[in-house]
C-alpha cells in the first residue's frame, strides 16, 4: 500500500491568512491603552494563535491523503473519503494543465471521468501512469 500525504502549502497559507485576519480583527476590540502598551506581545500572540488554529483547521478539513494499491485507491480530505477500484474504469489517460500540473484521468464505462491529481502529491506522473495501467489490465 502506498500513501501520499504532502502538506499543501498554498492551503495552509490561506488558512493562516484567514485566521490572522480574524484574530487581528478581534484584537481591535481591546482597549487602546492595553493595545498600545503590550503591542509587541499582542502581535506575537496573534501570529502564534493564527498558526495554531490554521494548522488544526488544515489538518481537520483541508489535508488530503492518497492511498493506493493494486486493487484501487482512496482519497481522504477531512472527513470525506472517496474510494474507487481500478477495475471500475475502462481506461486511463495522463493529462496536464497549462501550469504543468499533472493528473490521471480515469474514464468510466459511460464516458464520464474522475481526475486524480498527481503533482499535488509529488508523484512522478509518468511512472505512476505506467504502474496504474498495469493494475488495470
Amino acid at each position, binding site marked *: 500500500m*502506498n500513501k501520499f500525504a504532502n502538506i499543501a502549502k498554498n492551503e495552509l497559507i490561506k488558512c493562516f491568512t484567514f485566521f490572522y485576519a480574524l484574530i487581528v480583527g478581534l484584537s481591535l476590540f481591546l482597549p487602546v491603552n492595553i493595545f498600545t502598551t503590550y503591542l509587541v506581545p499582542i502581535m506575537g500572540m496573534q501570529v502564534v494563535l493564527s498558526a495554531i488554529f490554521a494548522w488544526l483547521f488544515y489538518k481537520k478539513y483541508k489535508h488530503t491523503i492518497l492511498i493506493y494499491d493494486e486493487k484501487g485507491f482512496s482519497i481522504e480530505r477531512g472527513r470525506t473519503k472517496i474510494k474507487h477500484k481500478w477495475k471500475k474504469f475502462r*481506461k*486511463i*489517460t*495522463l*493529462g*496536464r*494543465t*497549462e501550469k*504543468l500540473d499533472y493528473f490521471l*484521468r480515469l474514464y468510466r464505462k459511460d464516458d464520464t471521468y474522475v481526475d486524480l491529481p498527481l503533482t499535488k502529491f509529488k*508523484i*512522478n506522473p*509518468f*511512472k*505512476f*501512469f*505506467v*504502474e496504474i*495501467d498495469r493494475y488495470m489490465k
Partner: protein
Amino acid sequence: MRKNSLSKREKVMLTSLEEVMSGRGRYIAEFSEAFKDFKLNGFTFSYFVKGNTFIKGFFLSRMFSYFVNPRYNVACFLLKTDKKFGKKHLLRRIRTINKYAKKTNSRYVWFLLFSSHVNDSLRETIKTLDAYNLAVICIDTETGEKIHTVSFLGRQGKSLIRVKKEKKNE
C-alpha cells in the same frame, strides 16, 4: 511506489513522453493528454499524445496567443519496434496516421519510433520520406543513433527523443 522493471526502450520512451509533454515539446505545442496502448484501425501505438498550438497563459499571453498563434490540432505517436519492423510496416502505419490526421484536423504529426535495431530498409524509408505535415524520428536505443525525415518538422522533432544519461558510480 513499486519498482518498475522497464526495458531500456521503454525507459527511453517514457523519458521522451516526458520531453514531449513538459520538456522541449512545449516549445512546439501544448501536448496535454497522453494515451497508452492507443488502438487505431487495427494498429496499437505504445503512446499517443494529443495537443494544440493555442498557447494559454495569463492575460497578456492569452491575448497574444488569441491574435497571433494559429489554432492547430497536433498529435504525437510513440511506438516501440523491433528489428523486423521495416518499410512495409512503417508505411502502413503512416497511412493510418494520415487518415487520423485528416479526420481530426491535426495539422502536424510526429511519429517517434524506439527500436533496439534499425534495419537498412527502415533507415532509407525514413530519410527519403517527403511530407510537410508528418515527421518520423527513429532512435536505435542500443547505439543512440537518431534517424529522421529531412523536413523541418523532422529536424525539430529530433529533440523530442531524449536518452537519460545514467550516472556512473564513482
